């Protein structure tokens, strides 16, 4: 162990965090030091079943041996040269992503919000080419697209923070799943409709087929691009490699990140043919993006997640998980697809308190809204893991009677 990786214990880590880190997060009182598959260990050696996976990042499980090996091998060979040169893992990953989805081109980024920045640039430039001087991007209320300024402006719930203003102009939102309002909002100035096919951060709400069809139709009529933010839904989370594959529409652009690197930061903006040639030299760039180590990790992830047997397993296990959850006292409904599950609690129950209780019991989840638990387990778990997690949730809910 080097000095960089030596353990210092929870109390010292907490003290350093309190003194030196910007106060942008309210962290749970746990210092995780190790992960393997669906399990995490804290500094005291306590074991946890992880049904959050770093917000859908470690979808292949913590420290998946193939991802670790890819990172290890590539980091011993070449770590960075910039985008001024060719590197093989980047080129290979671009082919994998394009050929497994929309067939166009790929721009790599270091995160999901950056992938959306790229998509926003594509949408605006595409609109300018169509003679639109002030292009507009339409999203659903309670969409979450990121925290950089472009993505922030497309995230209505956060864009109202005037302390961070002024916001980037040219964004508007309509109520979630309101097909009629969406159709009315899309017009001659619309550059794109940018939506999550299943809203994640707002509590796991799938967009209805009707709303998706309305979005596609409105975009086709206006000449606008339909952009799916698949940062949380993509890379197998819903039981297909991309969530759009289980919808009745095909978007023009998708964005990906989170699970793509299996724990290593990487994002990607992937186009279909309609948007493949929009960006040109000088329009966009990144020093680190598409680096050899991150892209090698992502190739290893796609090798795991691209297996149709695993994807079927995700669909079946997701159905099993929801069935078991819906039988519990205190659970009003489940939402989502595959292993992206929102658990709606009965009225009067405090999801944040339940989440904190579950953490103490050894199950990691989170509460994206006051009445909802979000479950994003590793895709490689089996029914025993599900039974264990549901058992812990059942025990916890007994201590939180509903109204």
């Amino acid at each position, binding site marked *: 162990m080097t000095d960089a990786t030596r353990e210092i214990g929870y109390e010292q880590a907490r003290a350093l965090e309190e003194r030196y880190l910007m106060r942008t997060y309210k962290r749970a009182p746990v210092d995780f030091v190790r992960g393997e598959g669906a399990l995490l260990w804290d500094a005291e050696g306590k074991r946890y079943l992880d049904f959050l996976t770093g917000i859908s990042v470690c979808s292949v499980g913590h420290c998946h041996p193939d991802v670790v090996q890819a990172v290890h091998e590539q980091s011993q060979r070449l770590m960075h040269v910039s985008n001024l040169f060719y590197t093989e893992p980047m080129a290979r990953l671009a082919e994998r992503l394009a050929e497994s989805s929309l067939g166009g081109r790929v721009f790599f980024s270091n995160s999901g919000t950056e992938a959306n920045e790229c998509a926003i640039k594509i949408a605006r430039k595409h609109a300018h080419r169509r003679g639109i001087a002030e292009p507009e991007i339409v999203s659903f209320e309670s969409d979450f697209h990121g925290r950089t300024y472009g993505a922030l402006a497309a995230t209505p719930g956060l864009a109202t923070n005037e302390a961070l203003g002024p916001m980037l102009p040219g964004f508007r939102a309509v109520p979630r*799943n309101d097909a*009629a309002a969406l159709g009315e909002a899309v017009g001659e100035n619309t550059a794109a409709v940018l939506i999550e096919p299943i809203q994640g951060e707002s509590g796991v709400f799938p967009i209805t087929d009707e709303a998706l069809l309305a979005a596609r139709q409105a975009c086709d009529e206006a000449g606008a691009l339909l952009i799916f933010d698949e940062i949380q839904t993509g890379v197998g989370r819903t039981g297909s490699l991309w969530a759009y594959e289980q919808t009745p529409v095909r978007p023009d652009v998708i964005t990906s990140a989170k699970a793509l690197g299996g724990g290593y930061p990487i994002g990607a903006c992937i186009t279909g043919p309609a948007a493949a040639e929009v960006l040109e030299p000088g329009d966009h760039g990144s020093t680190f993006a598409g680096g050899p180590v991150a892209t090698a990790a992502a190739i290893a992830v796609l090798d795991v997640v691209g297996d149709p047997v695993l994807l079927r397993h995700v669909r079946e296990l997701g159905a099993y998980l929801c069935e078991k959850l819906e039988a519990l006292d205190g659970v009003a409904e489940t939402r989502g697809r595959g292993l992206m599950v929102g658990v709606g609690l009965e009225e009067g129950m405090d999801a944040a308190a339940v989440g904190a209780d579950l953490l103490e019991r050894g199950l990691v989840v989170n509460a994206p809204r006051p009445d909802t638990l979000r479950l994003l387990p590793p895709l490689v778990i089996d029914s025993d893991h599900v039974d264990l997690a549901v058992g812990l949730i059942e025990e916890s809910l007994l201590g939180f009677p509903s109204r």
Partner: protein
Amino acid sequence: MSRGGKPTDISKRQDTQKALRADTAERLEAIVEAAERAAESVIDDAEAQARRYLAQARAEADRMAADRGGELGGMIETLLGQAVSLRREAERLQATLEEAKARFEPRGAPSAEPRQRPELAEEREPEEAPRLRAVPTEDVPAPAPATPSERSSDAPGARLLATQMAVSGSSREEIAERLRNGFEIEDADAILDAILGPEER
């Protein structure tokens, strides 16, 4: 025998012993030389045998490599053949996709009926989620919403949904269930047959 003869005897004996020692030394030397020659011969034989084994092993390795190369060549040929098949399949699916896209591309103005703003999804039961309605074509009055039994694979997006699910590895049963739940298509055989081929019965 006089005692004076004794020195002579001793001397003779000493000479004899010297001669014997010399003879023994020669014999030992001869034996050692013979043993060394034999050992050298054994070493030479062993080296020669080792060289033969090595040559045989190399020849065997070359033969195996050649065989392996042939096998690999065969595998490459097979894979190339599979790639061609996959490409044909992809082209067929692409054609199906385009056909599906053409089916739901805008064909005119949307319905003149005022559109009601539906309630938010989270505010209603999943069973009450809005169902798809056919997009009316230009100059054709908007039809009354079809009953479930009247819905077909012509429903906008249904064929694309089925195609995308098939490409992503979903089973016939999974696609049929999704079409039932999302599009109220009770009999999905036509659309499934078109995409996956007729079901083996």
